[in-house]
């Protein structure tokens, strides 16, 4: 099942990447609005699936080198701040008019529509497309972050098991020094501290 989970994570990561890159291309970006909503919603299920079946792999993250963990924490903090700033910025620009004619949306053909800030707005194609670009960038990014972590854990676990003991000793604690000669995976006893 872990291979299935990794496959799903790759597929969702690729989908998010297509949306992110596509939002910068000089083509009509309306196509990306509903796929992004679908991707964002389904990412919870795919990430949960990945976390459940890749639990042994994810526990190894704690044994990564201290510098890697520091970088990961710094990147996570930077990403949170970046997202928070964009979230505030989103409220300073005109809202994206509600998509028409799809699940939970009003009929098409109205002059005035509610936007995603809850206000009535005139349908404006250029503003709509500009808003869509920002919206899909924000909402496709959590998928990139979550799937990257799952895939990194999946990739690193196999290498670590072959290299040495994946022990939960905490960051920077002698990993790769006195244990690197051990060829037996998961030695639970008879090891000196």
């Amino acid at each position, binding site marked *: 099942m872990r291979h299935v989970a990794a496959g799903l994570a790759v597929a969702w990561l690729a989908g998010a990447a297509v949306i992110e890159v596509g939002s910068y291309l000089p083509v009509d970006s309306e196509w990306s609005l509903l796929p992004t909503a679908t991707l964002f*919603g*389904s990412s*919870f*299920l795919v*990430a*949960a*699936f*990945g*976390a*459940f*079946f*890749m*639990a*042994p792999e*994810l*526990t190894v*993250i*704690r*044994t990564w080198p201290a510098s890697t963990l520091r970088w990961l924490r710094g990147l996570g903090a930077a990403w949170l701040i970046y997202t928070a700033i964009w979230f505030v910025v989103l409220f300073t620009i005109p809202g994206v008019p509600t998509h028409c004619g799809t*699940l*939970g949306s009003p009929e098409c053909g109205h002059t005035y529509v509610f936007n995603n800030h809850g206000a009535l707005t005139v349908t404006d194609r250029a503003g709509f497309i500009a808003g869509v670009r920002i919206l899909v960038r924000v909402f496709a990014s959590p998928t990139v972050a979550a799937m990257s972590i799952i895939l990194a854990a999946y990739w690193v676990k196999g290498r670590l098991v072959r290299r040495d*003991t994946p*022990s*939960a*000793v*905490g960051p920077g*604690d002698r990993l790769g020094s006195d244990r690197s000669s051990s060829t037996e995976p998961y030695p*639970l006893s008879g*090891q000196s*501290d």
Partner: protein
Amino acid sequence: MNSERYPRYYAMTDPFHWSTSKVYWRLTGVVFGGLAFTFAGLILIVR
């Protein structure tokens, strides 16, 4: 493993000690999977 010999010590000194436990990751999967299915069900009900 050190953390298996001294679980209480590591639990006290390492705020992310929980992430070395498979149970917590499985629980994360169950909780978020449950949330996802709940919202999917709600969307289907109110559509």
